[in-house]
């Protein structure tokens, strides 16, 4: 029989090793992507300024043609535009559902909406992309204008995909409000809506902001669904009905067409590195928002 004290110690160290593995994986990912992403600037001699702020994208152009041109601004601006627009479409519904589930109909309404939200989460992103492609894109083409593949199509698909994050995190935040403040407000003769709007909503604000940041993080990182409907044209997102590109969609499309170690491949890693930095920023934002509150 194994000595119980030894098994106790073995157990502790085994689980600790699992935790160390997570740290190792995280550091490995960050190190590899940073190394590959930075080599665009260190080895290939591309200037950070032209990468971030110019719009001319032709990494295959030879030096005699004045290349390589690696202006990634269209992709960065595209990701920002499609994510913010998706948030704009989705936030009223996500926060509205949170209020509905926590304040308006916490009984049967919640029992119905909870599985609804979970099913929205469950639908895989390629299926969202596929519906966008077969329903939304033709609809926009026939009834609104343009080719259909557009910023509008991308942000509507994304809006549906980030809705569950917005709804569930905001709901948790509303539910965490102490019942006392609601009752105090109602006891003062304030109506239900006024209580929600002026008491419950401000109290839930940090949680709602967390929900918004998490939703944005998901929007920035989504690749295939957006890539399928957004048209993948390299241009600045200036019109709702024009096709455009995002950071994730250029990585998805070009990674297999480029050879490792070339400038055209390295810049894709630089874009991935920017995605990584963006998710760091979001994590820091969430930590700042929740500073002083119990948060995992």
């Amino acid at each position, binding site marked *: 029989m194994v000595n*119980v*004290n030894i*098994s*106790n110690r*073995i*157990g*502790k160290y*085994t*689980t*600790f090793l*699992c*935790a160390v593995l*997570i*740290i190792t*994986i995280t550091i490995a*990912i960050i190190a*590899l992507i940073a190394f590959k992403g930075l080599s665009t600037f260190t080895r290939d001699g591309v200037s950070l300024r032209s990468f971030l702020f110019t719009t001319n994208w032709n990494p295959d152009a030879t030096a005699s043609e004045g290349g390589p041109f690696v202006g990634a601004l269209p992709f960065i601006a595209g990701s920002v535009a499609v994510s913010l627009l998706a948030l704009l479409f989705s936030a*009223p*519904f996500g926060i*509205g*559902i949170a209020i*509905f589930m926590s304040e*308006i*109909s916490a009984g049967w309404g919640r029992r*119905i*909406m909870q599985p*609804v939200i*979970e*099913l*929205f*989460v*469950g639908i*895989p992103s*390629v*299926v969202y*992309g*596929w519906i966008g492609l*077969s329903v939304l894109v033709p609809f926009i083409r026939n009834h609104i204008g343009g080719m259909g593949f557009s910023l509008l199509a991308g942000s509507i698909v994304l809006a549906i995909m980030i809705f569950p994050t917005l709804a569930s995190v905001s709901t948790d935040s509303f539910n965490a409000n102490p019942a006392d403040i609601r009752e105090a407000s109602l006891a003062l003769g304030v*109506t239900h*809506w*006024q209580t*929600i*709007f002026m008491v419950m909503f401000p109290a839930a604000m940090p949680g709602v902001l967390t929900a918004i940041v998490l939703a944005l993080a998901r929007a920035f*990182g*989504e*690749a*295939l669904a957006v890539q399928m409907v957004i048209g993948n044209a390299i241009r600045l997102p200036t019109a709702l009905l024009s096709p455009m590109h995002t950071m*994730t969609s250029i*990585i*998805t499309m070009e990674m*297999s067409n480029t050879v490792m170690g070339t400038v055209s491949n390295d810049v894709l*890693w630089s874009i*991935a590195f920017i*995605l*990584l930095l963006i*998710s*760091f920023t*979001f*994590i820091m934002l969430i930590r700042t928002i929740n500073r002083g509150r119990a948060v*995992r």
Partner: protein
Amino acid sequence: MITPRNSDRIAAVIFYLIAFLVSALLAALIGYILWQGLRVINWHFLISPPSFEAGGGIGPEIFNSLMLLVLTMILTVPLGLGVGIYLSEFAGDNQVTRMIRICIETLASLPSIVIGIFGLLLFVTILKWGFSILSGVMALTVLNLPVMSRIAEDAIGNVHKDLREASLALGATQWQTIVNVVLVAAIPGLVTGIILSSGRVFGEAAALLYTAGVTTPALQFHNLNPFSSNSPFYLFRPAETLAVHIWKVNSEGVAPDSRQIADGASAILIIMVLLFNVTSRWLGRLIYAKKTGQ
């Protein structure tokens, strides 16, 4: 006239309307997928391999998806449990613990395409595993590990303190308490979480494009030798999954009936996800009822 009483009523109506719209959208989405897909699905579609001509199926893709799911779960469940147990039972309030939590958060927030190209670099290129089941499983493990760790930590953390203390008071060691008392009490939460995250893994495509690949070699399903290259169980063969197939059919579909194929594959994917969802609820409830003797 807009009195506080009226605006209260209007607000209530608007919130009910939002809830109705959202539910209607979900019903429309799922209804549309199933309606479009079920017209395509038949036995031939489910078992035959894809083809360049009309009439191809998705048999190997379904097999690949299930294979990747099972292998990923075999890796992530124990590892995630380990992290969950450590964080909820052993971890002190110190730098190391904070570091672990930051890493879990970071991993969880990484875009899956970034995990995919990390897999392309490390597993496919540096370790020379090529586009293979093994590379795909590793990428999915990286993707699912933070999720699994959180599920495990939550499920274990929700076990009542009394149970732990009762066990320790009987003279059990901490490890005996964890294995024989805490983990057993955490089973409903664990099972629900594992099945729900299986649904996510099953539908993942972005992390697999550049790891498990977008092709499947011709497989001999009667060849069960895992070391032979046309065996379905050969770990170093490319394995296009159902979700990846939907993407590929759309972006480079050559078969004339690629629209029908994507419809059918989407429906299968949705049906599987619904199954995972229902099973997790049902199992969670069943285990809870058994344990509490109701």
